[in-house]
């Protein structure tokens, strides 16, 4: 029986326009056999939660290099919960100071992938994070 493909939403919340990393990760996840939906830029938390629901994803990857993560990530997580998507594994990539990590993990972010993280690490992390939520 074929394994059900992991469905991942890769999203760029807020005004951050740096999308190189998000696109590279999206491609890597796809090459690793996952179904990837990339939202493109300028996504509000509402748009992301709505897309996560519509696309019936197992994981949401947020990419934020603008420093606005402490405003945007809690909003996304709150909206996911409100839509009954608390099982969806949330990952964060980008520029996130170490001191913000504990608060983000406490909110439910499964892992924070900063500069220098390998694609293999991210692929493994998403697989494990989704499996843990099932």
């Amino acid at each position, binding site marked *: 029986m074929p394994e059900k493909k992991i469905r991942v939403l890769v999203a760029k919340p*807020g*005004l*951050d*326009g*740096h*999308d*190189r990393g998000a*696109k*590279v990760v*999206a*491609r*890597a996840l*796809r090459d690793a056999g996952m179904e*990837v939906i*990339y*939202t*493109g*830029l300028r996504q*509000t938390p509402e748009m992301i939660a709505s897309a996560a629901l519509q696309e019936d994803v197992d994981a949401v990857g947020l990419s934020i290099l*603008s*420093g*606005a993560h*402490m*405003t*945007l990530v809690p909003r996304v997580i709150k909206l996911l919960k409100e839509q009954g998507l608390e099982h969806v594994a949330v990952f964060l990539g980008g*520029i996130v*100071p*170490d001191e913000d990590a504990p608060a983000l993990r406490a909110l439910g972010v499964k892992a924070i992938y*900063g*500069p*220098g993280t*390998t*694609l*293999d690490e991210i692929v493994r992390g998403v697989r494990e994070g989704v499996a843990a939520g099932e």
Partner: protein
Amino acid sequence: MREPDELRAIRKARAEWEQDTLRAVLDKWPERCEEFVTTSSEPVERLYTPLDVSDLDYGRDLGFPGQYPFTRGVHPSMYRGRLWTMRMFAGFGSVEETNARFKYLLSHGETGLSVAFDFPTLYGYDSDDPLAEGEFGKCGVAVSSLADMEVLFDGIPVDEITTSMTINGPAAVIWAMYIAAGEKRGIPMAKLGGTIQNDILKEYIAQKSWMLPPGPSMRLIVDTFEFGTQHLPRWNTISISGYHIREAGSTAAQELAFTLADGLAYVEAAIERGLDVDRFAPRLSFFFNAHNDLFEEIAKYRAARRIWACEMKERFHARDPRSWWLRFHTQTAGCSLTAQQPENNIVRTTIQALAAVLGGTQSLHTNSMDEALALPSEQAVRVALRTQQIIAHESGVASSADPLAGSYLVEAWTNRLEAEAYEYFRKIESLGGVIPALEQGFFQREIATSAYRYQREIEERRRIVVGVNEHLSAEPLSIPLLKMDPQGERRQRERLARVRSERDNDLLQRRLAALRQAAQGTENLVPHILDAVRAYGTLSEICNVLREVFGEYREPVII
């Protein structure tokens, strides 16, 4: 150009060298890699000889600095006459903090200003716009009105120093604020010198801080060319950029080709409007990346000058030699800097800055060691500035123009990059030109593919990044990071509230209405934008008029 006999002799000698001397060594000690490639994954030969540049004609291909085709530099005396401008990109938090940083940099010897704006400002939103929540001052300084601009440049002699502003979608509005701020201090706009980036095509392709769709954006840009030509003779109305294209992951050839293709598209648009090429072309400027590969970058800049000169002269029939000049600013590659062992970044930035200087840049920004972690701290930015000063005064490379000319490698690569650029020009032409090509996602796909390949090379350790996949160190971070004033946003909101209540709102509404009417027609919008700015219209208010009339851009989603 060498004689066929001489080349034949060299070819024969090289074959013998390969069969005898080289073979003996390779059998004992194989080379370190299967393949040696540049940062752009282009193959690097073991050795370059006259055979690699056998067609080179000094007069036709190189010439002299300040003379067509300008391969060796735009100005005859180059850095002996005047050093490149040391222009450090700066901006964070509130205008008060950034004003202080400008003064700090000037006191430490920078010779030109460069402004980084925050994301809300880059997209044409006031600091208190709902979309701006959480984004205030994070990536640059927040500017929402003329009042902010006045504080930003308080105590800075804008009639004596030039200012470059990295602003694109709302460039005309921010430019108007700078002009109006000068007026308030009694400085006529004709005395102002500087640059607005104002390069929308590369926004769609790479930097992504667009506002309006392509057609209206191009109209607005040509409006700025027209206005600048008439009223600000010292102002560069555009900085046609490759930096961001490279940062998004492109190769050197793509950076070169896509930047120049964009430039040619702007020239075409201005000529179509009826502007005389020799009136606006001398104030076009460029902006390139300085990435890791020293020689590839130098070759890239030389190829850029030669291509641009040829196109301006042969294709557009510009007659003023100043129209043939490719003058450029360079920034060292932010994307090459690491969060791990940040002190290593000082070394990377030094090599990259050296490439820019050896390549003949007119202006240079050097990144700080904490680039991958935060906006620059004072200590980090001081070291970055000193890097330029040490290159200028201690390394000797500024004493002679285009010192690497004649290098077999450098000339071969200059030729190679030029040829690759022309191949891309043909491809873009076949797609209908730059705007159709970007609407089809051509550039974005090329860039994403290069970016993915580069990352795979790192993952598979075919490309080494010291401190990241080799020579790791588990030490914790030791450098102090920039802290912003937590009261900055509150001050900004208060200033905005004051501006909105103290200005003549009736006057502003009339001016916004005039702008709307002009936008719906074909008048030059810059005077109307200036009028709205002088009446203390805010960035959102003015940009909303433009957004309402012209709509907003939606990008094709490509990974």
